[in-house]
């Protein structure tokens, strides 16, 4: 049963991209465990505003686990100590009375800190721009049922497509690799007949862009999949590698 707890929150504060950051600890009393983690952060910010202090900057938007905007490292885990959720879906019932909770931004070379817990994830957009699409213009396309797609294939493409682009995979990876993110998109499109025409080009272009943007390489440690809020599977990385090697053979 949910009840009320007193906690301490140890938060990474950093005034700007070039400023020196540090941890600051805040005390919060009487927090209802039915509240979400971000609601707890709201309460903390209201407290800071009341004291005329600078509130903590953090990214958030839909607060229902789908927009991929929230991005906190909570107690050493991207999106906190619960599985298959984003930070906004984390609830205070996962914490106990008297606990000190450590909150950090994504830590990854390709995601520079903007302020406090807010990071710049435009690198993911750039990878998408390199090849995360089917080259088709609006209009002049065949009927939606013209090409049957076996259900298992469609389902697997859907599992890959459920990636929300939050960046937890790269943040969790000791190499700072974005392989799971890239693999999810490549896998989705390369599985489907509509995306097959460009499959080699796509795998190469997106991987090249990933390397260029300062993400690390994949050593198959699996931290990405373990922390992925949408449980995107490592098998997609295998598929990406296969398509990439295939593309290299065709070169």
């Amino acid at each position, binding site marked *: 049963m949910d009840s009320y707890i007193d906690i301490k929150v140890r938060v990474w504060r950093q005034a700007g991209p070039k400023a020196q950051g540090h941890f600051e600890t805040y005390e919060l009393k009487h927090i209802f465990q039915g509240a979400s983690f*971000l609601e707890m952060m709201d309460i903390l910010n209201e407290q800071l505003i009341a004291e005329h202090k600078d509130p903590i900057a953090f990214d958030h938007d839909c607060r229902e686990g789908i927009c991929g905007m929230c991005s906190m490292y909570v107690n050493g885990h991207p999106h906190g100590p619960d599985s298959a959720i984003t930070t906004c879906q984390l609830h205070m019932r996962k914490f106990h009375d008297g606990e000190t909770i450590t909150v950090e931004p994504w830590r990854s070379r390709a995601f520079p800190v903007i302020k406090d817990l807010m990071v710049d994830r435009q690198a993911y957009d750039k990878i998408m721009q390199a090849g995360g*699409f089917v080259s*088709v213009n*609006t209009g002049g396309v065949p009927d939606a049922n013209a090409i049957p797609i076996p259900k298992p294939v469609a389902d697997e493409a859907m599992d890959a497509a459920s990636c929300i682009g939050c960046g937890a995979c790269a943040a969790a990876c000791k190499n700072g690799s974005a392989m799971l993110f890239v693999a999810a998109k490549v896998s989705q499109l390369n599985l489907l007949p509509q995306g097959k025409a460009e499959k080699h080009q796509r795998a190469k272009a997106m991987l090249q862009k990933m390397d260029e943007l300062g993400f690390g390489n994949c050593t198959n440690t699996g931290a990405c999949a373990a922390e992925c809020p949408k449980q995107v599977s490592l098998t997609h990385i295998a598929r990406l590698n296969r398509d990439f090697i295939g593309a290299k053979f065709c070169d």
Partner: protein
Amino acid sequence: MTNTEDLFAAAKEVAGKVKETVQEAVAAVQEVSKAIKEEVAKENNIITPKMAKIPEGPLEKKWTNYKDHQKLVNPANKRRLDVIVVGTGLAGASAAATLAELGFNVLNFCIQDSPRRAHSIAAQGGINAAKNYQNDGDSVYRLYYDTIKGGDYRAREANVYRLAEVSNNIIDQCVAQGVPFAREYGGLLDNRSFGGAQVSRTFYAKGQTGQQLLLGAYSALSRQIGKGKVKMYNRHEMLDIVMIKDENGEERARGIIARNLVTGKIERFFGHAVVVASGGYGNTFFLSTNAMASNGSAAMQMYRHGAYFANPCYAQIHPTCIPKHGDFQSKLTLMSESLRNDGRIWVPKKLEDAKRLQKGEIKGRDIPEEDRDYYLERRYPAFGNLVPRDVASRAAKERCDAGYGVNNTGLAVFLDFSEAIQRLGKDVVAQKYGNLFQMYEKIVDENPYENPMMIFPAIHYTMGGIWVDYELQTSVKGLFCIGEANFSDHGANRLGASALMQGLADGYFVLPYTIQNYLADQIGVARMSTDRPEFDAAEKAVQDKIDRLMKIQGKRSVDSIHKELGLVMWDFVGMGRTAQSLKTAIEKINAIKKEFWSNVYIPGKADSLNNELEKALRLADFIEIGRLMAIDALNREESCGGHFREEYQTEEGEALRQDDKFSYVACWKYKGEDQDPELIKEPLDYEFTERKTRNYKN
């Protein structure tokens, strides 16, 4: 003989000439009377179909006729034209991508860190189309009819028909982009049913249809960004539209002022036309299913420049949301309408059972079948649990008001899957709704496979919005509005799975055509410098407003005032409205406005990243929207769709329209700060469809 024949011939000739002259005279009189009618209409603040640019001809020919005769811009000229698109949801992203594919230069803005995060992403259930893949009798006309009826006959016939017409193209387009819609074992697309329809026409991708469609549009947009045809501005918020007079002294939208949310810098952008796709204003209520940053400020900026705000009181209250649990709550979470395909909604029959549930002494599963009141199935046998959203929401409120609510606040009803689990097996139910069940369990900490879900209505979508003509152009030249931000196609109530349809219809298939009819006349207009005095003035006004806000340095946080506004909206402009409640609301909102402008506290500086300032700027507009909603709701003395005036209901408690008095779009024209807006009417004369009382009973 010859003479007689000659005489006859001469007489015939004369008669023919007389006939011609008379015909000409009649035509001339008709022409004049038409012109007089238009003039009179203008003077009486009436918008005629001609002013709304609705094409002539039968309903099913209008869009084709329009496309056949509209002006187009040739490829060489397209390169010389810049179009600003504000927003990257389904409407904004699809419009930006399509315009760029056509060859226009597009400047696209979003407030999030990436265009992929717009709130369309959160739509769960699906998207409608009249494909009739299920062979269950669907057609373009039927989708049109269901949408018009679902909207309680308060939408424009021509627009809705066009929407139904292009719905099929959307599905084709999305599949071509690689959107992984759900499929049958044979490999063909699967469908499910949604509220307000008796056919299965909803295409879906698990419970994440909005996400998949948005990612499809985002991928098309990304491709154009990569090609350099779209210049993307993330973390930028439009704060005003820049108007510049043309050589005839007519004002046209020619650019925007935007704040870079990272640096706090105010920036200027020029465009030959401005397209706003900024979504709805549901967050006026503070608690809604909208994302935290969703706001109505873009709409208010358009409104203050003379664009009419149409039907602001039409807000949709979604019946299946997770109930509120505390004062600290930041938003309400929607449980997809698709759950009503298999879930059954009920409350206890006995008041004592409800009381024990409220005290937490028993759980839903403890109440035997015979003591459950499946009130939707009881009241609406034909549609049962799949009645439209407004009907389902009001029915839930009615039961809770009568004391049958099932949680500690008494403000919840059950959505029960036990029968579906028995019928289909847990695995099938999990396959269909697994991610929604997981979401529910994470929030409420209760297993919906074992105990029925608890749900309650919450603000979800706003049908009202900026008035647009058939071309999706507002009453301001060069300013277009698409998606949820316009008043468009849903009338007084939107059917499930139709928002995605409308957003993508506007962005992929309607605006990219209609905007050319405007831009074709702009090819001679050279790009303008943003150093012009009009840009200076607009930027200064924005800066002054920000300075004024920063100087208040009062005692209250932005959120605390927003929550106060939200409570007033929910209590007095919510599911059941009365003349008295609305008058009270206006008074209270005026007081909140005063409090806000004298006692808000914004920490930090304006020329740097400042979330509180962002929220304050949005709240300033929410307060105005709240007032506008109340004014409109007070004016509309009838009940229709999402607008329920308690004075106007049938004996059975159903909504009672007043077609003779209120069959019009209420367009509100801005008359200045704190002035009452002026009402302009667009009559809705139903030419093609017979208006009936909505009946979901039999």
